[in-house]
């Protein structure tokens, strides 16, 4: 079969894991020189590989669309690391757009991340919170290239990009272990739901017989 640049490899998909999210810290004594007075937090939003591996071989650039009140709200990061550090006082939705390299010939991927500056849990319940605690809100997802074209497929095949650590570590929570735990949890749920279904089925049958 002839191999052309634009031809897609049918019935095949390539997966690349990514991690995106933000970290946030309260502003201490040391303030960035140009930070406005009302800003209370310094935060960083990022898109990276699960183990900080290089993802620039298939991602050309990442565009973060911040809240309109920021000067130059649309920030484009053209080289790794794809991250952006800013100061602010409030939480908002950040639109993340991932553009892929030219030869991929794919549309960009757009999704949202809720910038988190405050911890989830109740502060008083968890004991006194240290002012310098870093808050992070990180999500794991997988980019699926369904039927990539031949050339991009080759590029993707050149790097084993789907590797996950086998165990959970401080640096990277997303691992095969977590995946297995997740699967186990879902399986448990399925089992429970199945039980309930059986119970209901017998009930319904009983009702119908009456």
């Amino acid at each position: 079969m002839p191999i052309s640049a634009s031809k897609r490899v049918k019935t095949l998909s390539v997966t690349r894991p990514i991690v995106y999210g933000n970290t946030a810290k309260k502003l201490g004594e040391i303030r960035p020189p140009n930070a406005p007075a009302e800003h209370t937090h310094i935060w960083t939003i990022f898109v990276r590989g699960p183990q900080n591996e290089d993802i620039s071989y298939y991602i050309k650039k990442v565009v973060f669309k911040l809240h309109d009140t920021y000067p130059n709200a649309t920030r484009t990061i053209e080289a790794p690391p794809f991250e952006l550090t800013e100061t602010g006082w409030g939480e908002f939705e950040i639109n993340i757009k991932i553009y892929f390299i030219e030869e991929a010939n794919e549309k960009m991927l757009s999704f949202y991340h809720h910038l988190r500056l405050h911890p989830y849990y109740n502060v008083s319940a968890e004991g006194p919170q240290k002012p310098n605690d870093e808050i992070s809100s990180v999500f794991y997802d997988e980019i699926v290239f369904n039927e990539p074209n031949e050339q991009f497929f080759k590029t993707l095949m050149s790097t084993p990009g789907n590797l996950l650590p086998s165990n959970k570590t401080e640096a990277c929570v997303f691992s095969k272990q977590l995946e297995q735990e997740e699967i186990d949890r879902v399986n448990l749920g399925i089992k429970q739901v199945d039980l309930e279904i059986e119970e209901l089925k017998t009930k319904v049958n009983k009702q119908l017989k009456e």
Partner: protein
Amino acid sequence: MSSSDIFDVLNIQQKSKSHGNSASPPPTVSASTTSKAPKPQVTGMQRELYNLLGENQPPIVIQPASKFKDKPTTTTKPSPWTNAGFKANDHLNLHHWVKGSKELIGEEAKESSYSKFNIHLRIPSFEEEDYKSFMSINNNSNEESTENAVSPSKNDNDDWEYQEVDYLFQLCRKYDLRWFVIHDRYNYGKSRTLEELKEKFYHVCQCYFVTKSPNDPLLPSLDFPKEKEIERKKYLQRLLARSAAEIAEEEALIVESRKFEMAAKKTLNERESLLRLLDSPNSDQSVSQYLTSQGMSQLYGSLLSDKSRKRKHESTVPENPWMKQQQLFALQRQQLQQMQDKKQETQDTNQLKKTKRQKQEMQAAIKRKAETVYAEHLLEHFSPDERKSLGVMVHGEKLTPGVYLRSSKISAFKPALQSKVVAMLQELGLSATPAMPTYDVIQRHEELLKRITTLVDLKKHLDKLDAEKAITK
């Protein structure tokens, strides 16, 4: 008397004369009186108008107009009418106006032309001995036939004397069985109800005719069920005595009951669909049989036929159960055949039998299979572990090409259902979206979602059944 006097009387002025009789006073006097008399109050323009009209105008224009039409001018002669007598009945002679001369009609009173409508019922009459004989015969036969079960109403009739029966029959004859009149005029010492009178009459008639012509086919029509008649009248009375509020309530109840009927029909339908849901093949069978192209086309075919069956079921026209059965057989046979074909790989003969659409589907499947083979060929020097680390997999399915986030492909439902599903997930201690949406996790998650929707559906049906039961109770 001079002419001037006459003119004076007639109030006519004559200038020529006035010249001659200038000395005589009357014309001037008359002129002054005439000018004075008609217009004492007329002033201004109106007076001028009167002057223009001049004197001696007629007071009112009288037109000869009659209020009545012209007399009809008919040439025909009026026909003669005669006040002729006629016999109303045997005792009574009456007169009425009849067209025709006296000679034509004749002197003697004639039968009325309406007398032919004056028909009396032929009611049997009998002597006391006859009565006693046929009554006793009949009572005996009655007792013989129904030895123990002699109806009490018959026994109550024992107080009827022949004289009273005779009196009753006379009344019946007189009033032509107009029962209300008979009951009104009935005066034989005892007070009897209308039903009693009727019953006695019909009973006696029956006895009479049984002895006279026992084979008459009309005999059973002389039965008079007194109790039923009383009951019927009671019902009728109650029906007519209803107040407006009661009628309204009754109508409301009828509407309500109709609603119940409708609801019952609906629930019956739903129950049937539920039964079908319960009968549907369990989803925990492995999907591996559908992963091949053959399996896909088979699934497609079965889904198609399933849809058509459902549509047929929804129609209100009752269908022939035998037809249904036959269709089922046909479907089973088809499936069986497909299975065999799959085993034997006799694709060519199979394809000929398929419809055009299925053919296209088949071709697409074959193409996809070839592509899958090609994709497999590209990856043939990778081991499964290596494939996993590369994140590459051959799914062999027909999915839209392009890039997407794995988490965005988690199936979503209608808002109402979605909230229930999320609640269920929370109950199970799971989040709405998995923390690590890898391929395996999403597969399991989808499976879980499918089960949950089934569960929610079942719950809904159970609730409905409960409600239905509560209604029927």
